[in-house]
């Protein structure tokens, strides 16, 4: 009985030790799969990390992106929501969550996310462009043109095209 208890305790300690050390490796394996464009394979590793540490920011972020890439936008938003609880100053998180919400046609929510990202970093051209597009679809032409004008001044070719079509 004593040996059983000891071996049980030993296995628990060892498993926790291994699980701790394996998180960076698991993330590395996931990242490797991303390089091979194997999003499903990558998601497997990020999910493994989240089973060990459900709030791991890197795993939540990449898990969300993998789901986004696999067009599973609702679950991607879910991961980004979980990440947003602890990581409140992440422009990329709001950018991706905005994109996922845009794809789900949740335009007002997407707009809010792009605006949050731009509060953190007003020079983020992708967020500014995506907000302009979202505003365009929300029939807020004036505000959309304001964002496009900012991008034009920064020399963004795509914005120039859109501005000529919609704002001139």
């Amino acid at each position, binding site marked *: 009985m004593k040996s059983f208890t000891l071996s049980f305790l030993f296995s628990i300690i060892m498993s926790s030790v291994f699980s701790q050390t394996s998180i960076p490796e698991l993330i590395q394996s996931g990242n490797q799969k991303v390089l091979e464009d194997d999003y499903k394979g990558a998601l497997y590793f990020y999910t493994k990390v989240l089973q060990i540490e459900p709030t791991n*920011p890197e795993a939540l972020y990449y898990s969300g992106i993998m789901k986004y890439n696999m067009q599973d936008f609702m679950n991607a938003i879910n991961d980004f929501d979980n990440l947003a609880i602890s990581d409140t*100053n*992440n422009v990329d998180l709001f950018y991706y969550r905005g*994109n996922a919400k845009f794809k789900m046609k949740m335009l007002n929510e997407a707009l809010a996310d792009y605006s949050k990202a731009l509060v*953190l970093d007003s020079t983020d051209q992708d967020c500014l462009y995506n907000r302009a*597009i*979202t505003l365009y*679809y929300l029939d807020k032409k004036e505000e959309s043109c304001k964002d496009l004008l900012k991008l034009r001044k920064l020399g963004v070719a795509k914005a120039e095209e859109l501005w000529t079509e919609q704002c001139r």
Partner: protein
Amino acid sequence: MKNKLLIYYYLFIIGVCTITPITANSSVALVQEKKDYGIQDAKRPYTKPKDRPYLPKNLKAIPKSSQEKSKLDSVPKKALKRK
């Protein structure tokens, strides 16, 4: 009788065909379809909070307010009361 009905039917069709384009034209501005513009979704790697270029600005802002708060905390409550 049948011929009369046919004539009415043809007149109705001709009427519809002439009116529809006119009304459709007038409502073009209202029902104008949105052009399909895609968003930018370039891949972005995860950056740790300490590596974010825009964060120091925010981090500076937080201690400042907390410092002010702590200063306020250190002031005796009586001093904050209006005389």
